[in-house]
């Protein structure tokens, strides 16, 4: 595959209270997964959003973005909605598709996905996983 983007991938390893972040434009991989329970979500997500802003200057034709979170606190939800709103803007330059993953037994996570899909006007797929 031809190199689409000159940006370096963003890879943040998960910790006890922050998720794994893995954005690699060359591979077409955008993923936030695991737990997001930091005390200061603003600080954790600042570089994540900064990276995405830079990516938006010269994005891939398509961006498939996976949210695969097991637990997240309300502090994180404020940041996640920022990312979602950003992806909505990005959709003008790159065809964005959001995949919201949840376990079949986690009704709350499914409900949140549905609510967010109503707020964000881009292709939004709810992906159910058997537990």
């Amino acid at each position, binding site marked *: 595959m031809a190199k689409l983007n000159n940006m370096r991938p963003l890879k943040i390893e998960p910790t006890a*209270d922050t998720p794994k972040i893995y954005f690699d434009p060359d591979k077409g991989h955008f993923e936030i997964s695991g737990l997001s329970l930091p005390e200061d979500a603003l600080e954790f997500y600042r570089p994540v959003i900064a990276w995405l802003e830079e990516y938006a200057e010269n994005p891939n034709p398509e961006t498939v973005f996976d949210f695969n979170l097991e637990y997240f*606190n309300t*502090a994180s*939800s404020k940041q996640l909605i920022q990312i979602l709103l950003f992806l909505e803007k990005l959709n003008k330059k790159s065809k964005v598709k959001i995949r919201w993953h949840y376990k079949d037994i986690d009704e709350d*996570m499914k409900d949140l996905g549905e*609510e967010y899909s109503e707020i964000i006007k881009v292709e939004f797929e709810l992906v159910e996983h058997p537990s």
Partner: protein
Amino acid sequence: MVTHFLSNQYKEFVAEFFKNIQKGDLEYIYRGSVNSVVIANILDLAKLNLELDNAVQPVKSRIYFILGEGLQNITRHQEIIPGDDKYQNIIVISKQQYQYTITTGNIIRAERRKELEDKLSTINQMSITELKELARYIRKNFDISPKGGANLGLVEIAKRSGNKIKYSFRPINEEFCYFYFSAVILTDKLEKDFHLRDYENQYIKYIEEFHNYLDEQNIYIVFKGDFHQDNILALFDILRKQLPETNFTIKLKNILIEVLQNIEKHADNLNEIKDWKPGIFTINMKDNLYYLTAANYIKKEKIPVIQRKIDKINYLSKQELAELYRNTLLDMENEVTAKKTGLGYIDIRRRSGHPLKYDFIDIDDNYAIYFLQITLTNNGKIK
């Protein structure tokens, strides 16, 4: 509108709990049947806390050993009373300045009381040297005995604790009784006299009464201490490993995080010691409803704000709550501070599906204890 939902007994229990708490103190209580998973989780919590402790390594190793040995002692000897699940084992890990106390209370057949009493009183009369010799002797001569090695465990615990083992028995019925066993480890020998005196006189009595209360209220978990992020995550992790994943337990864990982080962010401290947020968290079950109750100190001036916030959301419909959630989520004016999202109570209220209950008790002119209770219906099974 304050709803006085808590019994005076519960409030007294919490007030008592708060009375002597010091920075760095911690108490974790587990009530229920004990298996290898439960033991592994409790040991993990202990390990994490020991890492944060200033005690020297040999002391930490002793604490860890005694805890492991004491817990295994329960699994070897615990009995279940047929058809009655009111009575459950208890494990208490308590850290007060300069001392760790590990206490177990488990159901045994009443006929074993004499044998245990004899063993423990013999052990308690021995010096450290004698205990060492006895341990060596048992290892050599009774390698394989039916109940896990002639109570080598008890001898080892006494030896490593360096203090007398405290024990007592509380009758349940003619056939069964609780056997309480408590070992204390001092992290600083200079403080020995003061703390031991306190421990010898009151502690095991206190545990007995407290256990009785936990049985009556069907309380599964009590966590008292400093609600900083490490402790919150440790507790979260314990519940994650202990409870199988169901829609209910996922809700419970989500709520737990919100409630505890709320304490971490907004609780006050009587002595104005910085970076310390003492709180209590319990989980109990009654009539098929689960109750998560948190208590912490707050400055009285915050009371009207809390009341207003909770009253506002308590009687909104599902639809109205969803709208409020969305508007608050998208409200970027609060964005400057990482601490306030305005979403905490709304999120808890939505997940719970029940009105939130709160209460306050006065401490002095400036401070109160703030109680927040969340109700959860369990449609599935927790265990």
